[in-house]
């Protein structure tokens, strides 16, 4: 019994990471039909943001007393970092490729390679500088009054904001690299995020120990899912996003600026990848390739859950998480030791992380043969038309 609970718990924790990341992927895919292969790398950026935040809180005297809450701060920072990079990706590349899914696929794959190499060969301090510069440059048109940006004068002002933000970025990079020497050197090696002391250890309930980091991951996921669903169902922007998702040209004719909706949605979807990245950094070490090991799982969740279905996404990610843990850690054998030997040896064969993935994908492929539209296909009058 205890084993089953432990296994379920671990599975839910792994599934939680998938859920947050897949939620972002599903929102973006649902809205624009864009398959963003760089989504995993946006998670990776979120994980690195956690690492940078941790170092800053450890090494800068002013922030040191608040070291214990750096994880909470990192969630916000990771959301912003990945969101900003996502918005840049949308504005610069994906926007030009709407309606051509194959080109988008290739382009985002290329971006994922660029991002991987970027964290390998650019010192993290200057990487942070780039994000700061982008943040200032992208948000300045929203903050400045409209009449300042009109006409020829506006073009100069816009160019000026880009120039200023470039300077701000370089300064940030310089300051960070002089303050924290580890951030000043480029490194392709994996880094580790250490949890603050209050997050180490576990909570014991009825003789089962639940690690606190995993509890925190589940909590982060829960909050993200609730916030996203409230945002989508209740807020004005949520209604606009849903309208554009379902009928882009008519939403345009009703007075919705579809471009703004695209930017916002891509930012939120990418930001969620960043939040998932924080969770990833708490589960294991962080490297340039960390996104790749999650991206396929995210796509599986989206396919299995049915596009644009929150409940389907939740069930799919949690069940993939639980199965990964059950099969990959070989827990089935521990739970049922008297298993007949041919079955036992099969299960033993699949009891590694990579083989477990093979097994799960095979199961998903079989499942999709029977339900091609996923767990919860869209129903009703509108499907036929």
């Amino acid at each position, binding site marked *: 019994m205890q084993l089953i609970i432990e296994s379920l718990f671990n599975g839910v924790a792994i599934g939680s990471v998938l859920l947050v990341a897949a939620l972002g992927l599903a929102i973006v895919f649902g809205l624009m039909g864009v398959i963003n292969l760089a989504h995993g790398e946006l998670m990776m950026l979120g994980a690195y943001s956690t690492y940078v935040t941790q170092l800053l809180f450890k090494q800068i005297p002013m922030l040191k007393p608040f070291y214990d809450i750096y994880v909470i701060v990192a969630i916000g920072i990771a959301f912003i970092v990945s969101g900003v990079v996502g918005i840049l990706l949308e504005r610069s590349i994906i926007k030009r490729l709407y309606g051509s899914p194959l080109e988008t696929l290739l382009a985002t794959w290329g971006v994922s390679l660029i991002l991987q190499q970027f964290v390998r060969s650019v010192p993290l301090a200057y990487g942070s500088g780039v994000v700061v510069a982008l943040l200032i440059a992208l948000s300045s048109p929203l903050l400045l009054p409209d009449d300042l940006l009109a006409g020829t004068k506006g073009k100069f002002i816009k160019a000026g904001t880009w120039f200023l933000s470039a300077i701000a970025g370089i300064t940030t990079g310089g300051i960070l690299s002089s303050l924290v020497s580890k951030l000043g050197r480029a490194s392709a090696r994996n880094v580790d995020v250490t949890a603050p002391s209050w997050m180490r250890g576990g909570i014991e309930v009825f003789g089962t120990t639940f690690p606190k980091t995993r509890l925190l991951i589940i909590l982060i996921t829960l909050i993200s899912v609730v916030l996203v669903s409230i945002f989508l169902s209740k807020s004005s922007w949520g209604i606009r996003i849903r309208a554009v998702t379902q009928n882009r040209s008519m939403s345009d004719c009703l007075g919705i600026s579809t471009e703004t909706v695209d930017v916002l949605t891509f930012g939120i979807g990418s930001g969620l990848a960043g939040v998932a990245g924080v969770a990833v950094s708490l589960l294991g070490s962080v490297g340039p390739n960390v996104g790749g090991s999650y991206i396929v799982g995210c796509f599986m969740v989206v396919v299995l859950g049915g596009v644009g279905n929150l409940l389907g996404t939740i069930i799919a990610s949690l069940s993939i998480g639980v199965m990964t843990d059950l099969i990959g850690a070989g827990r089935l054998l521990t739970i049922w030791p008297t298993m007949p030997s041919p079955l036992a040896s099969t299960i033993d064969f699949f009891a590694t992380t990579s083989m477990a993935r093979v097994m799960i994908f095979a199961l998903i492929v079989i499942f999709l043969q029977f339900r091609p539209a996923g767990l919860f296909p869209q129903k009703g*009058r509108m499907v036929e038309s």
Partner: protein
Amino acid sequence: MTLLEVTGLNTYYGESHILRDVDINLNKGEMVCLIGRNGVGKTTLLKSIIGLLKPRKGEISFEGNSIIRKRPYQRARSGIAYVPQGREIIPYLTVEENLNLGMEALPGGISKNKGIDPFIFDLFPILQTFLYRKGGDLSGGQQQQLAIGRALLGRPKVLLLDEPTEGIQPSIIQAIESAVKTIISETGISVLLVEQHLHFVRQADRYYAMQRGGIVASGQTKDLSKVVIEKFLSV
């Protein structure tokens, strides 16, 4: 007073030339009907006016300002509402949310404009009954009423109506017809209507007849002769 003026409009789908030098105008408080057989470019003209299609040549001005370079959402916010053929209800949004979206064209959009003006429910009582149903679950006629109601909530100056009676049962056609008449007399908006249904065509003040992408006849609807009707309406 001319509210909407289209001059020398040429629109293409790829390489095929659809609209050829179209000139029409619409005055304030006027109902104008576009007639013509299938495939002569009526819908293309409406889509060019709302901005879904980009004309290669020509000019569209609204209240004296050129809108040819404006995006559809900017045209909607300036006061042009579009009810397309096939209604284009947002399917998984409730009737209420669909109606709310109509107010996106008002200054401040749906964030600042809350509460649906009840005159919509006087015009189309069925919408109040089905307020919490999904838009896509309504019948064709109900969707048409929803689409018109949604367009009106943006308090437009011009309403573009594309075949509002197509494929709809006769009792609802009458409801829609009388609603459109009420709207014009009460709010003073202008309507540009594409229609095949003769009874509805006769409600309009003026008509333009289209053939092969161009305007070939125009005049007062009361002068609409049998010959013209037989030539341009597929009845």
